[in-house]
């Protein structure tokens, strides 16, 4: 039975992938991509990768989908003009043949992998007690490979600097995105009042559960950022000024606290990013709590785009 379900999911996934590629309308292609991401999350659940599934659903499907929808909205005006610039049938056929060849090469690559696939999982298990957390993913992300996590958070901040740098000079320091105006008694405003309390509780639960169970700050941050965006889009609150000192403090809090805890490790445990014995769990919680505002703010501000109204105060 489960084989039948798996096969059905895989076929559906392939069909969605092809559909996303061949869709002529950008909005439909993005819609296909979002559904594809959610279905892919289901595949990860079946492969027992619950953490990956949550991340794929939140980041791959949700956040990326929302960013792409924003892009589609901005491209609306030029979409019809670019549609006429499409490639010739020959070029399309060539691209299809090439894509199939690359896929075949990748499948071959997977097939030549040794069986069983070598893994570091047996090394992770005995090392987990030293980290004080129960979820091995959290152990990898915040102990064994903490540097990667620190730098990934930094990449997000750099991406935000890059997005902000697209602002017009006169709007520098101003607010990003449009000022949304909606009917204060409409459905959106109603949802924006009802959903956030629930969403915030779920987000904080996913965040807290991440220490010992699947979940964590990235998935939680996506949920919280979505709630903030909902409130903004319903016109209940405005995006903050990008020159706001408090906003910037929230953006840099995560990486700076992470580095500070790392330096504490250098002083108290003999190595940068090491945790003093017995303090691993509390310090990991400190890092995660500091990373949460960074991730929520950066993800939401990436959605908002560059500052474009209300220049220098």
């Amino acid at each position, binding site marked *: 039975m489960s084989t039948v379900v798996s096969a059905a999911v895989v076929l559906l996934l392939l069909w969605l992938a092809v559909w996303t590629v061949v869709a002529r309308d950008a909005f439909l292609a993005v819609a296909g991509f979002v559904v594809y991401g959610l279905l892919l999350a289901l595949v990860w659940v079946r492969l027992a990768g619950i953490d990956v599934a949550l991340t794929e659903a939140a980041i791959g499907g949700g956040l990326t989908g929302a960013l792409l929808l924003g892009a589609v909205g901005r491209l609306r005006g030029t979409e019809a003009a670019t549609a006429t610039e499409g*490639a010739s049938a020959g*070029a399309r056929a060539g691209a299809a043949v*090439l894509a199939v060849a*690359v896929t075949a*090469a*990748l499948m071959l*690559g997977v097939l*030549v*992998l*040794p069986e069983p*696939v*070598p*893994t*570091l999982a047996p*090394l*992770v298990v005995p*090392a987990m007690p030293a980290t004080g957390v129960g979820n091995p993913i959290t152990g990898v992300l915040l*102990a*064994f*490979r*903490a*540097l*990667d996590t620190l*730098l*990934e958070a*930094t*990449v997000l*901040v*750099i*991406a935000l*600097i*890059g997005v*902000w*740098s*697209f*602002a*017009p*000079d006169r709007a*520098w*320091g101003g607010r990003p995105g449009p000022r949304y105006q909606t009917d204060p008694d409409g459905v959106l405003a109603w949802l924006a009042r009802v959903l956030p309390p629930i969403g915030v509780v779920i987000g904080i639960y996913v965040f807290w559960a991440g220490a010992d169970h699947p979940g964590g700050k990235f998935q939680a941050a996506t949920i919280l950022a979505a709630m903030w965006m909902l409130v903004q889009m319903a016109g209940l609150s405005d995006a903050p000024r990008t*020159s706001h*000192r408090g906003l*910037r*403090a929230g*953006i*840099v809090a995560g*990486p*700076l606290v992470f*580095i500070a805890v*790392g330096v504490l*490790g*250098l002083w108290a*445990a*003999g*190595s*940068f*990013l*090491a*945790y003093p014995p017995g303090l691993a769990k509390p310090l990991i919680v400190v890092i995660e709590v500091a990373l949460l505002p960074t991730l929520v703010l950066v993800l939401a501000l990436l959605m908002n785009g560059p500052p474009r109204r209300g220049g*220098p105060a």
Partner: protein
Amino acid sequence: MAPGELLTGTEGGALLAAAVLLPFVGMLAGLLLGGRWLPRVAFVLMPLGLGVALAIASARADADGPLVYLLGGWSPPLGIALRADGAAVAMLLAVAGVVCGIGAFARGDFGLAPGAGESRGAFAYWLLLLAVWGALNLVFVSGDLFTLYVALELLTFAGVPLVCLAGSGETLRAALRYILFALCGSVLYLLGAVLLYGGYGTLDMPLLAGALQPEPIAYAALALMTAGLFAKTALFPLHLWLPPAHGGAPAAASAVLSALVIKGSWFLVLRLWLDVMPGVANAAAAQLPAALGAAAIVTGSVVALRQQRLKLLVAYSTVAQIGYLFLLFPLAFDAAGDMTLREVATSAGVLQAIAHATAKAGMFMAAGLVYAALGHDRIDDLAGAAKALPVAVAAFLVGGLALMGAVPSGAYLAKKLLLGSAATSGQWWWTWVLQGGAAFTAGYVVLVALRVFRRPPAPLADLKPVSALSQWAALGLAVASLLLSLAAVWGPLPPDLLAKAFSLEELAMLPVLFGAGALLVAALARSPLTGSSGGAARPGFAGLGTAFEAGDRLVRQWAPAMLALLLVAGTCGWLLARG
């Protein structure tokens, strides 16, 4: 390296973590403080970072082998180790020096006037300069293939916005081109890293070097990663993004992009081929990077000679110089096809990379100053520039002289080392490419020199003042490139390499190169060597030049470039598998 050695760090290892994180701390602090603090934070960080790089060099000189640092005390394969060998230390030092030089230059463009508020350009420039610095330091010292992927992402995301600081539609298009193609490269690199982890269960470079077997999975991984990194380095024919990006950015940003950013992915190719996969790579496959490099030298140089704007000339000369950086790969192999000349090839590559970083930063800065002062950078109308901007023009010419390998520049020593390896290994064909590349470089020095020293038809009016500090920063970097081999033999390389440098035979090389360069310019340049402009009748050669331009335009379109990317990966894999 035996696995046992991996379990401990070495004295001074924590400095490696400091080298990586200090620039990022500066970036975060600058973002928080904003406004007038942006340049201040950068100027505090520059001496600090240079100090850390010097401390690492001193620690490395006292140690027997590479410096190693185990982050969090976790040893690979579970944890991540930072490592610095001689090549990494040299690159750390060079990047710190070049960042300081570029920073001094950029004060003229992005320093904030008293009383002025935070500006978009200054905000993005100073924060991203620090981000590029941290990312490059991570590329040099990371010992883990996934951390290196993160480093490449940091580098790309920090580099792309620098392209479109000016904010015009044209530069935005250039930036978009850059990020899309660079991300294709990232995906190929990541795919290779995933295959390696799937096949060998570790991402640590020394552990992988010990475990790798010459088998399909390793061939596939090396081919994919190599092609991806070529795309990020803009090695011909994968350079579609470079000329508009480097030619359109403000000079202070072009210097960062051309001198520094592309060195990150290049250094990673060097690491993969010579340190991680010496057991997988072979002499036949190593001909591929050098063959593409030779094509880059010829095409990039010919198209450079046909440019009408100084900044685009410098951008296309970067395309050619990138080719030069890849000539070392076949020359790491001896006549029997074993990788015995690895040390020499690494030294030559690092020397050439540093020589290019210093000289090219100076040349882009000089081109930017000329543009700022004259209000244009049309090569045909540069008459009188030498008199108006003597220091900036000197920086351009000294930089060019250094790149063509005048004694005692870093490029001279790099070329000498590679010529020696070519002779030892019997690969005489690379001798021609090495000398020919130098002649092309001499070509654009001659081209510009003939214009800037000419007397203008009317005295130059409306000259805008440019910062003296900026001019001297450009000249300082160019001179550093010209004196680099003195520093190299004072440092790690044997002094007898320079024993014959000032002999008549070596010094006579320079006029020969200039002569060859002048001939190339006379044959290929758009307007005649002497005289102001107008079409001289040189139909045969002009046709050749136009043909190269057409070829360059063709491969700089999306479909040919993507095909070339796949073709490079496929050819590389096939050559590796064939042995």
